């Protein structure tokens, strides 16, 4: 459930997820029968959509509701009309037709989607502004102050080599938006945004490409500063003094931002896309822009790899791998396989009349090679199959409505990057550089394989005629065929074997390189999150200890919750006794004592001889907890003179309200709890309202459309008078807004904030 990040995630806002597609049906008072019926159906429809998740998300669920709820609700709403009707405003008396209600609902839903889209757009723009501001702060103010340090810092300016281009791209993007003089609320804004982004995309790619390819250098320099504690403390002091409002403790705090920013564009754009109607004129453009942002990331990563390769060419004194591979020429292969062939011959006991050791060696090598290639291909395909299985799991989509928390957001960003471009690039390279050539190689095996078999056939023929001195014309032909094939294979198989082996060897080197690049891409991504997560500074051992203990603690709390829910809610109702029941109670207690009194939880119908019939709630005394045959499910009871058997499953212990109840045999006690809470109910029991710990406010602007509604501005605090309308529909709520005006507003326009937490401006969300 995607929530627009309008409010800063550090305050825990429980914002509402996307509201239901249909706006709540307007409340209608008396209606004539058929309209009533229409509306009732619609109410149901309205209810259905209200409680189902509205978009076709994988998580959409529809709750089954019994119709009895609806009818009981209606009757109830009439009953409880009493105390609150004075406070209610008279709803309008206009009678709307079902059709008009539906239209209104659709319009309201569209309005809400538009607001969410607006927020997502503003988030992109505001965060861009913030990002640029912080970069400028670091480049100008902080760098300026650091330059003044004595003795001067080595290599300081080298850390800022490429940040100017990045800042330039960002400021150009923002100025394009400002120039057009459209505001985010303007329908044209989205188009402007996409066009600006697309027009700058090649410049963005060029700027970020260089920046990211050189980012390692920045961390190297900073680490060199960290080696000297005094120097580093000084640097941190300057940073803090230059930017007191920012909680930064290193230079990379700022300089890592471009790394993260470029990876965030896809997510930001996709969020906007999510809340945009496909019929929107700029939708196709937006989709294209989102794809472009992913392509940008792919291109930037590819360039980074390219530069690494170019920079890292190693010269070793010993033979390089490439040379070693090239040494695998035909001659050396033939020689080395001689031993192999002897082994195989020995094992199979084949001694053809004409033994050609050299050929056999080549042939055996070929078969071994063939087997190796086929097996490798199969293994690679299995690997790719599982890779696709992994890519199919979109775990980042479920955030349990924790959009405001840092860890889920980081997880979402990491997983989005991994799943949407880092792993796909890896897969693509695997297929291009390994799978495809391997398939081609496998296809080439056919020729030599068939030829070898043909040779063997011809050999058998040849053996028959070889000894003869006078060969007929046909026999000559047969002999020549054999000799030709044999010679051909002898000449070319070594080369085939050698080249094929070289290819396999190179492919494995590529395989290793692909893994390294994948890991390197992920490492770069992680760098931007390193400082944001609260426990990232813990050592591995400490971290896992913490995580596991939290899991245990969480499990404990859940257990406590379960138990408390079960205890309280399963407690039976203690009814006051009717006079006849009171007499029965006294009678039984006098005879059997108070410890043996049980009550029938449900009516008991006798099914056997000597069984009793009991009414629900009837009191009995238990004489024996089993019958004469030892069956513990049948208890002998005294029902005030009548004696007989009753099923123990239907009996519960009876306690006088005033007594302390003994612990139930069915529930296990948690540690430290001495008794179970079973309540004695009295009219003066605890008050029903508890201390509120949340305040309610408007999450979105709402414009009143009539005198019975009240307008709200987003962020305004309201007091809820009634969380439903006159018909009991919870989709509208009666609120009192600032200024004392009262009226109805859509319930899902309201949200909760913990008391005492302020609200920040949009766009103040930053990854730190």
């Amino acid at each position, binding site marked *: 459930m995607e929530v627009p990040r309008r409010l800063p995630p550090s305050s825990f806002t*429980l914002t509402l*997820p996307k509201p239901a597609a249909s706006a709540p049906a307007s409340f209608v008072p008396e209606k004539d029968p058929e309209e009533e019926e229409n509306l009732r159906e619609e109410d149901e429809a309205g209810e259905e959509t209200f409680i*189902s998740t509205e978009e076709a998300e994988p*998580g959409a669920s529809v709750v089954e509701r019994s119709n009895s709820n609806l009818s009981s609700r209606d009757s109830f*709403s009439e*009953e409880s009309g009493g105390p609150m009707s004075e406070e209610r405003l008279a709803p309008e008396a206009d009678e709307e037709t079902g059709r008009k209600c539906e239209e209104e609902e659709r319009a309201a839903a569209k309005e809400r989607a538009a607001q969410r889209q607006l927020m997502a757009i503003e988030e992109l723009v505001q965060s861009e502004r913030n990002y640029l501001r912080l970069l400028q702060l670091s480049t100008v103010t902080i760098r300026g102050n650091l330059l003044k340090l004595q003795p001067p810092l080595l290599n300081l300016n080298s850390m800022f080599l490429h940040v100017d281009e990045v800042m330039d791209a960002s400021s150009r993007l923002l100025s394009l938006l400002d120039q057009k003089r459209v505001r985010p609320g303007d329908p044209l804004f989205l188009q402007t945004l996409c066009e600006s982004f697309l027009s700058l995309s090649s410049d963005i790619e060029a700027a970020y490409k260089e920046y990211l390819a050189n980012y390692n250098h920045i961390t190297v320099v900073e680490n060199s500063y960290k080696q000297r504690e005094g120097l580093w403390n000084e640097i941190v002091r300057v940073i803090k003094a230059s930017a007191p409002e920012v909680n930064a403790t290193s230079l990379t705090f700022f300089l890592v931002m471009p790394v993260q920013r470029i990876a965030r564009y896809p997510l930001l754009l996709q969020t906007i896309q999510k809340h945009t109607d496909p019929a929107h004129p700029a939708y196709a453009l937006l989709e294209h822009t989102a794809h472009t942002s992913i392509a940008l990331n792919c291109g930037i990563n590819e360039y980074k790899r390219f530069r690494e390769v170019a920079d890292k*060419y*190693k010269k070793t004194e010993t*033979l390089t*791998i490439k040379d070693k*591979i090239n*040494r*695998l020429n035909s001659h050396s292969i033939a020689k080395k396989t001689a031993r192999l062939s002897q082994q195989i011959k020995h094992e199979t006991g084949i001694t053809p009349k004409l033994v050609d050791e050299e050929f056999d060696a080549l042939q055996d090598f070929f078969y071994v090679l063939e087997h*190796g290639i086929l097996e*490798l291909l199969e293994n690679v395909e*299995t690997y790719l199959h599982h890779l696709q*299985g*992994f890519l199919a799991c*979109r*775990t980042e989509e479920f955030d349990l*409505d924790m959009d405001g928390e840092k860890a889920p957001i*980081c*997880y979402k960003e990491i997983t989005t990057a991994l799943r949407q471009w880092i792993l796909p690039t890896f897969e693509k390279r695997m297929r291009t550089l390994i799978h495809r050539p391997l398939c081609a*190689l496998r296809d080439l095996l*056919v020729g030599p394989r068939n*030829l070898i078999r043909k040779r063997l056939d011809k050999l058998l023929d040849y053996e028959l005629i070889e000894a003869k001195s006078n060969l007929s014309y046909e026999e000559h032909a047969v002999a020549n065929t054999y000799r030709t094939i044999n010679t051909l294979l002898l000449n070319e198989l070594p080369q*085939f074997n050698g080249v094929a082996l070289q*290819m396999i*060897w*190179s492919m494995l080197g590529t*395989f290793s*390189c692909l893994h*390294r690049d994948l*890991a390197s891409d992920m*490492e770069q991504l*992680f760098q931007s999150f390193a400082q944001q997560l609260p*426990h990232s500074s813990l050592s591995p051992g400490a971290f896992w200890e*913490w*995580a596991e203990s*939290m*899991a245990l603690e*969480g499990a404990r*709390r*859940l257990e406590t919750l*379960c138990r408390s*829910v079960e205890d*309280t*809610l399963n407690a039976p109702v203690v009814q006051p006794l*009717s006079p006849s029941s009171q007499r029965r109670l006294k009678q039984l207690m006098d005879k059997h004592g108070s410890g043996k009194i049980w009550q029938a939880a449900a009516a008991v119908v006798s099914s056997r001889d000597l069984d009793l019939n009991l009414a629900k709630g009837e009191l009995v005394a238990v004489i024996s907890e089993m019958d004469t045959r030892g069956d513990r499910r049948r208890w002998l009871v005294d029902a005030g003179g009548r004696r007989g058997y009753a099923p123990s499953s239907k009996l519960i212990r009876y306690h006088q309200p005033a007594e302390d109840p003994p612990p139930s045999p069915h529930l296990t006690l948690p540690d430290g709890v001495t008794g179970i809470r079973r*309540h004695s*109910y009295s009219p003066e029991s605890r008050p029903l309202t*508890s201390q*509120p710990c949340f305040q*309610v406010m408007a999450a979105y602007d709402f414009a009143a459309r009539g005198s019975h509604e009240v307008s709200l501005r987003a962020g305004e605090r309201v007091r809820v*008078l009634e*969380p*439903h309308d006159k018909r009991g529909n*919870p989709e509208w*709520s009666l609120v009192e807004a600032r200024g004392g005006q009262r009226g109805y507003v859509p319930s*899902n326009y309201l949200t909760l904030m913990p008391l005492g937490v302020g609200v920040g401006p949009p766009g103040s969300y930053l990854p730190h």
Partner: protein
Amino acid sequence: SNWLPFLVWFQFSNSHMFINDVFTSCGQWLEDQTKKLHKDMKKSTEADLAMSKAAVKISADLLSNPLCEQDQAFLDSMNALDTAMKRMDSFNQEKVNQIQKTVIDPLKKYSGVFPSLNMAVKRREQALQDYKRLQSKVEKYEEKEKTGPVMVKLHQAREELRPVRDDFEAKNKQLLDEMPKFYHSRIDYFQPSFEALIRAQVVYFTEMYKIFNDLTDQIDQAGLTDEQRERETEAKLSELRALSIVADD
């Protein structure tokens, strides 16, 4: 959908109505989300493990093929690859174990709470129905002419109503207390899981980088770009295709 606002409002007001739908629908949403996330996490880790095992098989099968013995340098490369794959697989296994303990198991436990909560909601609804039934009974007698027998019946009905109402309101309050806390508790409950997910991956990919950086230095020093690799491969394939034995006559 988020039902907390309603719950809080019910705390402010005395209205007890309609919570059932709110509870069931919103509890349902959280339950569904939790279950789906659990399922997807499981599938994802299974695929992850399978991938890693497949990678190990690639190098292990090659190493056991007699091809390797043909050239010492080739054999050395294969050994290095095999070692690297096995190490990566063991790190992967460790990563999955950590995720199992700190993410998947907690998800499962969280799902396990819903049957109790759903039952509690049902019980509350039952109590509400009892309450309403007795309430209407009381009101029925209140509307009648105040004769002696009627007054007696009215008194009895009121006596009957009282504990049932109290029971309902206690159950109601309990749910109103616990449900928002439960819903809100998911943040504290799952925060460590998300952090653990990230950390486990950071560790894994850091190790993966070290392993494969070293291995690549050893068996792929040429450091070609993708285009260069493709060209080389194509050149070799062409060389093979040029052989007469390859063209199937």
